[in-house]
């Protein structure tokens, strides 16, 4: 008798995998949460779901048993790097860090101090590849209605958000702290988070994925600013069209006036741009920032033009208008009254628009976790905490987070940033303080560790960790690309 046979009763099915014999409705699971009704079929859900999620997240599939790949345990041989995930921590750190591990790397005794830090002082820096206007600089960024950070500087082809930090985590209301903590943890664990910007857009941010601005997924990062686009494509346009305008909220480029057009002897066209001219063929502020063409607020590109100058313009003159991503493009021919009339785009120009698109990199959100290792965490590593800081500054001690490389800020303290997509899945946790729990590892020569006042009595050889019960099995798919 098959143990997975079922009897259909209306839309319900009856599972006979075990004597409970659950009736299961479509889309629901039985009492065990292991068997479910999927379109009238009894399916087993537990191992497969785990596998699918791993594939979905672009993770590496690894065997459950010890093998060449990550085996799901904290410690891995050979040339193992011990990560702090799951190491546990205490606060304040009057006790030595949970794992102080020694191993030989290149014949030198190395010590890795592995701990999980509770970071009340932490945040994330988010880079969103889009030219669309997400909100004015310093505007408040909200999650669940609570202020969790602000819009900071616009950078090349991207908008930056600065979220979290001590003021939102502990300085505001209790709910603000809790929502901030949840937001930081979800972003750091590469989960999607919806953020609403005061006076701006709503954006769904997920590390390593394209941003979704006002329900529209951003596909491409722009190829360059409007002026740069003119420079890159001027030769390809030469002879095929009389005028090209690359609409860009930052710098709109005009082919006939641009240095690149001048070099190709492109004739004046009598075009009249709105906005403020910076240098020939380069215009600032042709429109307001927005989510339309090239990060402006316009949907009709002609709105950035004034009337053509009849001294230079002529009926039949052709013009291409295109955005910096090639996402928007239109082709015009001037009529007898010198008004641009939209006309079907010739195929060679369409090809140049596609070429712009092709040269745009995929738009992504990147999330850097930023945290500071405070006095008490350092005390878990050494009796004389400031020596750890100095050792890090002197590059004798390497700092990593979940095994991922970090950037340590110059200046005081050990304040670091790490790309969360380089860390194993689920690396971040939280405590209700509210604060985030993040892994942090310090690796140094055993002799250097002794010199900086390390807890030498607690140093354990790598092999002892591997056999220990403190070594927790975790389903970690390994590094995410």
């Amino acid at each position: 008798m098959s143990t997975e046979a079922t009897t259909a009763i209306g839309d319900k099915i009856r599972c006979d995998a075990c004597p409970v014999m659950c009736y299961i409705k479509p889309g629901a699971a039985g009492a065990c949460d292991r068997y479910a009704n999927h379109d009238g079929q009894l399916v087993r859900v537990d191992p497969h779901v785990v596998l699918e999620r791993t594939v979905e997240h672009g993770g590496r599939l690894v065997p459950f048993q010890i093998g060449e790949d990550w085996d799901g345990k904290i410690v891995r041989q050979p040339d193992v790097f011990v990560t702090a995930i799951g190491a546990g921590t205490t606060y304040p750190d009057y006790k030595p860090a949970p794992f102080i591990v020694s191993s030989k790397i290149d014949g030198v005794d190395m010590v890795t101090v592995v701990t999980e830090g509770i970071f009340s002082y932490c945040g994330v820096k988010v880079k969103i590849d889009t030219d669309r206007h997400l909100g004015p600089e310093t505007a408040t960024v909200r999650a669940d209605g609570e202020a969790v950070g602000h819009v900071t500087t616009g950078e090349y082809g991207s908008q930056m958000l600065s979220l979290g930090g001590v003021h939102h985590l502990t300085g505001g209301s209790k709910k603000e702290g809790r929502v901030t903590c949840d937001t930081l943890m979800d972003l750091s664990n590469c989960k999607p988070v919806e953020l609403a910007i005061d006076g701006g857009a709503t954006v769904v941010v997920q590390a390593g994925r394209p941003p979704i601005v006002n329900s529209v997924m951003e596909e491409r990062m722009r190829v360059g600013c409007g002026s740069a686009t003119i420079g890159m494509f001027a030769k390809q346009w030469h002879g095929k069209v009389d005028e090209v305008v690359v609409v860009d909220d930052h710098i709109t480029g005009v082919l006939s006036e641009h240095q690149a057009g001048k070099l190709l002897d492109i004739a004046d066209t009598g075009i009249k741009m709105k906005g403020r001219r910076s240098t020939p063929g380069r215009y600032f502020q042709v429109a307001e920032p927005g989510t339309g063409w090239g990060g402006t607020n316009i949907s009709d590109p002609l709105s950035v033009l004034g009337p053509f100058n009849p001294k230079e313009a002529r009926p039949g003159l052709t013009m291409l208008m295109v955005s910096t991503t090639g996402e928007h493009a239109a082709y015009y021919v001037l009529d007898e009254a010198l008004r641009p009339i939209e006309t079907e785009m010739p195929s060679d120009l369409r090809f140049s628009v596609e070429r712009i698109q092709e040269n745009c990199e995929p738009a992504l959100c990147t999330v850097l976790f930023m945290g500071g290792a405070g006095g008490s965490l350092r005390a878990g590593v050494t009796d004389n905490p400031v020596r750890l800081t100095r050792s890090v500054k002197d590059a004798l001690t390497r700092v990593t987070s979940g095994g991922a490389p970090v950037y340590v800020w110059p200046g005081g303290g050990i304040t670091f940033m790490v790309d969360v997509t380089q860390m194993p899945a689920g690396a971040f946790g939280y405590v209700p303080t509210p604060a985030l729990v993040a892994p942090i590892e310090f690796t140094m020569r055993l002799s250097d560790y002794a010199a900086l006042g390390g807890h030498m009595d607690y140093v354990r050889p790598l092999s002892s960790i591997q056999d220990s019960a403190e070594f927790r099995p975790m389903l970690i798919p390994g590094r995410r690309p």
Partner: protein
Amino acid sequence: MKRLPQIAFLPDGKRLHLQDGPIDLIVEAKGRTHASRAAYDAAATRFTGLLDELCEELAELRRAAQPSHCALKGVVARRMYAAVAPFAAECFITPMAAVAGSVAEEILDAMLDAASLDRAYVNNGGDIALHLAEGEHLTVGLMDRPDRSGVMRTMVIGTDDPIRGIATSGRYGRSFSLGIADAVTVLARTASMADAAATIIANAVDLPGHPGVVRRPANELQPDTDLGARLVTRDVAALTESEIEQALEAGADCARRLLGAGLIESAALLLQSEATMVRAGDVRSRVHHDRRLEEIQA
């Protein structure tokens, strides 16, 4: 062909995992090597066939318990009944409300019959039966959000405490709740008593008629549920502080009555990041997470 449960050690080689249908147990026995070996053998032996035993009386187990009459025969089924009987006169409850704790207790008893152990526990999806020999203790972590990592507080249970059962109920659990608590954790003399009481207290944490609480008939979700068409909580909107307080107070009131009747030793009630503790000795101690943590960090 006889269906056999899954019996295997976890990767740490120290804890035994037993699974059959909806029953999922993590078992640990500490003692001399031969004693824990014997205890694990006893656990596996007792576990085999236990689900079939329960399912023979499943229809009766899913019916409302009568306050003074038990028609059940199986030893685990009768333990389930005994755990819910004190509540049967006042409200609707079926023996199923104590199934997890009763199974945990049964396996632990089988282990202790077979061997003398220093410390042992049987964890049935969060409902835990434990054994502590003289001088032993167990640290228990309470989580406020089962979908997140992070422990809200820890408690240490020693030999002298009367507590040998721990259970948690609430709307994030695997079974339905009539109330809105995120979690109610109960410490009691036995796991089956803790299990039944956690269900009752979690049901009492409620805001009847509140528009932000989405409820659905249980049998629309699970056709053969023991709750029939009773409305179970599916979603709870963000509540104001005073609403949270009101709901927690209703649950705490229930918990205090159970404490007074000697049915529980203590309870922790959690709702939207607020917690209330009820325990012997202090009538009521309200714990704000961050205030408590500030004290620790100060």
